């Protein structure tokens, strides 16, 4: 039976499941033997690009593998676009792409044959699979090397080939497990750019697992930090950035006390950290030029002014210190 995907897409549009969160964790727990790896994970992940962070052994890869149906949950479950991972695993895998962390290839094959085989296994007809294999390899930048044997590829090229096989069948959700592992800076930049492009196309959601904070910061809108198999933090990076946009650090010389009181008079909150440093939260309608005006009137020099924002590193370190949070 040939399934017309276009028709299934139309029915999918009218399906309320389409408005479901990308990933819905319902008390998901996984144990290996007697050792708990994931402990009662709960929450709804809705971002276009979700960063999965955590120290080594936190359970990032196990979470991805469980969502793919490689490991059965010991209790609880999860839903991907409204479909249960325990009962609809095969259906889920038809709209999911996966780029594994470790080197995973079929040897003695050219890249185009490898990617074509993967597309055919995803259900694409042979001719379409071949066409899309070429397109995917061009898209990731391996167009010129697509007839070369995979065994001859460099590490960076292998990573790109893995990305090509993950996107060749045009999935709705792509799991990327440490996609920049072992890449040199230009190759890393290329990988990050590709992930950004896929995210911005709006055609697929991305779950990016990494222990490199910079990668996640550059690609993701939401982050989920795991610690010892539990959710330590889940936050929206964009909102965090917006919230911190009006948080200023000032270094001043002169009558800081009078200056601070004048700022308070404008309705801004402040905190003096040292004799010369001041933290200020700007209120609605107050601009930086107003601060300079007040400073001038109090004969205070503003030597340095910077926006203070919690970097992802701060969030991560806080999560590691504080322990367990939740959604």
């Amino acid at each position, binding site marked *: 039976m040939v399934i017309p995907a276009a028709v299934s897409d139309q029915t999918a549009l009218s399906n309320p499941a389409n408005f479901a969160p990308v990933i819905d964790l319902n008390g998901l727990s996984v144990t290996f033997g007697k050792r708990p790896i994931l402990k009662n994970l709960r929450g709804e992940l809705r971002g276009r690009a979700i960063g999965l962070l955590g120290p080594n052994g936190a359970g990032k890869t196990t979470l991805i593998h469980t969502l793919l149906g490689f490991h059965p949950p010991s209790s609880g479950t999860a839903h991907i676009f409204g479909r249960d991972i325990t009962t609809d695993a095969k259906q889920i895998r038809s709209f999911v792409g996966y780029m594994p962390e470790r080197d995973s*290839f079929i040897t003695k094959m050219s890249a185009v044959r490898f990617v074509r*085989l993967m597309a055919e296994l995803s259900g694409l007809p042979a001719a379409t699979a071949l066409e899309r294999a070429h397109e995917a390899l061009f898209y990731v930048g391996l167009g010129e090397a697509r007839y070369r044997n995979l065994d001859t590829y460099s590490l960076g090229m292998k990573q790109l080939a893995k990305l090509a096989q993950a996107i060749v069948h045009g999935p709705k959700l792509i799991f990327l497990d440490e996609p920049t592992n072992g890449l040199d800076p230009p190759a890393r930049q290329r990988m990050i750019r590709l992930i950004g492009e896929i995210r911005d196309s709006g055609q697929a959601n991305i779950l990016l697992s990494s222990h490199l904070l910079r990668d996640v910061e550059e690609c993701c809108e939401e982050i989920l930090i795991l610690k010892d198999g539990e959710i330590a933090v889940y936050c929206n990076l964009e909102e965090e950035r917006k919230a911190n946009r009006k948080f200023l650090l000032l270094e001043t010389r002169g009558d800081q006390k009078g200056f601070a009181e004048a700022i308070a008079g404008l309705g801004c909150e402040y905190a003096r950290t040292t004799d010369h440093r001041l933290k200020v939260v700007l209120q609605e309608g107050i601009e930086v030029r107003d601060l300079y005006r007040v400073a001038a009137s109090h004969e205070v020099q503003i030597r340095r002014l910077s926006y203070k924002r919690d970097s992802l590193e701060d969030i991560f370190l806080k999560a590691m210190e504080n322990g367990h949070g939740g959604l």
Partner: protein
Amino acid sequence: MAVYEHTYKRYAGQLTPEWSRFLIIPHHAYRDVFKSKLFTAFFSLCFIPLLVEAILIYLHHNVEALALMRINVRELLPIDASFFQFFVNLQGSLAFFVVLLVGPPLVARDLRNNALPLYLCRPFSRAEYVAGKMSVLLILLSVITWVPQLLLFLFQSYLEGARWFIDSLWIGSAIFIGSVVWILLLALLSQAVSALVKWRVVASGALLGILLIPSIFGEVVNNLFLTRWGNIISLSALMRNVSAGLFGTFVRATSRITDFDGRVAREIVINEPPLWVSWVALFVVCAICLGLLSRKVRAYEVVK
């Protein structure tokens, strides 16, 4: 994701039927298999006995050709169950060597290169993966065993007449069942060994060992204890018995005359294990192979 557009685009076209997807594996595997000149040459040689068999059947029914070659029809083998059994066993032996060349790297290569997650992260189950890998062997082996044998059986029926065909239908079923059981056993064994041993040469050696070592050991047991129960650990002996049972040539009791100092002679009757024991033993071997495959064919192995 068109080449000229360089943008990511989801696929919204038609999909192939799910049941047919396991056949993608043999389709791609045959490209590699027939790249080897050694294998292609050997595989071609496997058809020579079939050619001889066809010639023998043809000669049996062509008096003119026999007269021309000055052969008496009585000197030729009779075309009966034993005739087909001989060629089925011969092709079965050749099938083993085909498995030795093709089977070991099939799963081992994927395990060595961590390729299983790539298969299993798609709408493709472990059972379909095993079926796909098995079908690489099953299709190849069918081409040199039961398919041509059944065609030759039909050829003989055509030359001999409808009456012979109806009377000999059981030979056709024996050809089919005997060959299928053997190639299924070989395919399962080679996949299980391939899943256990990641190196091709070692896997080939192990496969050869599984067939030879128990046979030798079984023969030693048979001779030491004047029995035939040693055969139950020998795959080739088990299969020989099953094949003989299917072709109606299975003889359970065999006698042996032992001579003492040239004066006293004693007859010892040695019984083969019952036929059902051979079937059960083969079933157990297949079950063990399936158990091993189910244990080893996983996206990721959890190390305890």
